[in-house]
């Protein structure tokens, strides 16, 4: 396997633009750390963050306009089913990050308690919806057993104002913001009930076939960042300030908590590894939901070749 060049960058750096899927955020601390600590440079990569919409990243990688993207797990089977030649090459999260959040007075402790509740999510698409449906299916509930409300990305606001009873969100984001506002919450984590493929790095088949060495360099650097962040959360957090506008002025405790909560979801042993059963589960859920019309060959969808 490829070793970092000992004496720093020798030749030209490969420029990589990485779609992050969201705006600058502390959850990306491992990547910021990897850049700041020079890991990417060590592997001959000059990294540029791109905060466009998630699906853009998948499409652009699929079209070989870009080599890599950071995506949410369910996107990979969905996109491959549509013929996008993308391959998942590195798991960043082990646990599916979606959670159902409610104020404690609602008494929603288990998925069964959801029956008859008003559940708000951005809309019937994306990771939140997949997480919700997976959870409901796991405990034998139907979508019609709950009252689903599409509120856009305003879950925090609608829960805070009791416009709804339960929200679906990322466990490392919405609940922490709400707790910071002083609300007492119950969380139901999807990952407690079912293993699903979670966020990671994709590339496309062409890059994988023609330049596997680039993929290896990229994944290695990223993994080094993750490892660094896990071992030095405080320091990783400090790196965020350079990348996230307005972080100095935000509530830093909350933000640090966001980082810690995401770290609980990381895939650490081994770094970058994605579990085959999580893939099977994901495919099953997506097929059942009708988000995929036909089964795909999961072997082509991901590889653990680069995990460490």
């Amino acid at each position, binding site marked *: 396997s490829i070793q970092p060049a000992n004496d720093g960058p020798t030749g030209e750096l490969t420029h990589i633009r990485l779609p992050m899927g969201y705006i600058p955020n502390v959850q990306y601390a491992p990547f910021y750390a990897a850049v700041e600590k020079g890991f990417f440079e060590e592997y001959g990569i000059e990294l540029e963050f791109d905060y466009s919409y998630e699906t853009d990243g998948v499409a652009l990688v699929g079209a070989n306009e870009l080599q890599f993207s950071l995506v949410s797990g369910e996107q990979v089977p969905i*996109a491959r089913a549509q013929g996008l030649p993308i391959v998942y090459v590195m798991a960043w999260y082990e646990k599916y990050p979606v959670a159902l959040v409610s104020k404690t007075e609602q008494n929603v402790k288990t998925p069964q308690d959801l029956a008859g509740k008003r559940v708000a999510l951005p809309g019937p698409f994306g990771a939140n919806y997949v997480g919700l449906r997976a959870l409901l299916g796991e405990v034998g509930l139907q979508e019609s057993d709950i009252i689903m*409300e599409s509120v856009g990305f305003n879950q*925090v606001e*609608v829960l805070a104002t009791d416009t709804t009873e339960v929200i679906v969100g990322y466990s490392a984001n919405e609940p922490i913001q709400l707790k910071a506002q002083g609300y007492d919450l119950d969380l139901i984590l999807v990952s407690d009930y079912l293993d699903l493929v979670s966020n990671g790095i994709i590339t496309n088949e062409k890059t994988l076939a023609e330049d596997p060495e680039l993929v290896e360099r990229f994944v290695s650097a990223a993994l080094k960042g993750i490892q660094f962040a896990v071992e030095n959360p405080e320091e990783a957090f400090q790196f965020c300030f350079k990348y996230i506008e307005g972080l100095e002025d935000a509530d830093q405790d909350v933000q640090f908590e966001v980082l810690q909560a995401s770290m609980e979801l990381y895939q650490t042993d081994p770094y970058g590894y994605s579990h085959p059963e999580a893939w099977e589960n994901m495919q099953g859920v997506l097929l059942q939901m009708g*988000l995929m019309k036909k089964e795909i060959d999961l072997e082509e969808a991901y590889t653990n070749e680069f995990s460490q």
Partner: protein
Amino acid sequence: MKDFGVGIRKIGFLVLSILAGLFLWQMFTTFSQIPSFIFPKPIEVWDRLIIVLQDGSLMKHALITLQEVLFGLMLGLSAAIITGYFLAKSRIVERVLSPYIVASQSIPIVAIAPLLVIWLGPGIFSKILTSALIVFFPVLVNTVVGLKSVPRELYDLMRSLQANTWQRIIKLEIPAAMPVFLGGLRIGATLSVIGAVVGEFVGADKGLGFLVNVGRGLYDTALVFVAVFTIVLLSLGLYGSVIFIENRLLSWQKRNGD
């Protein structure tokens, strides 16, 4: 006979125009390097269209959006006409309200999305509002400009005939301001669709905007195109209606222009 001939010719132009578009599209997808999940071929979109037509889902979403658009258009129009009238008539009202009106135009909807959801719920109302909001301004401005273009001599005439306010509005101001006003309506009608669709993007589980979101989420670009075309069709339909009204109401001006 004559009118009929003109109608045929108009439709001929439309068909020609559409065929030319289809041809360019086919050429483009054939010769460019862009994969079809980013830019599908006409035939793929056609197949997808047949499917959503047969299962009725396109119709369902289109009707929802149409409903939002029509209500939004009505709301935006009424608000714009009434406000426009007072703005054109009173300097003070104009000075006090203008900044707020301009402000209301430039506030990005996503920025106030939480408030919309909290106040109006996740249903159809927030979409009607976003549609109305975007319709409002062009119609307002053209109402004001149109009213200001009413010849002063005709005001004198109406005054001398002791027309009351209502008659002055109906018999003078409305017909005289109509050409410019209808220009505003053209803009407003077209924008109303995009307003409703944007409202749906922010958060919805039905409507054509939602369908675009679904298509994007599933990398089903053909579906995205089907939804977009339906949106465009809706716009064209509304635009066509305005043109139809123009042809009716402004025939006196047409003769002049031609």
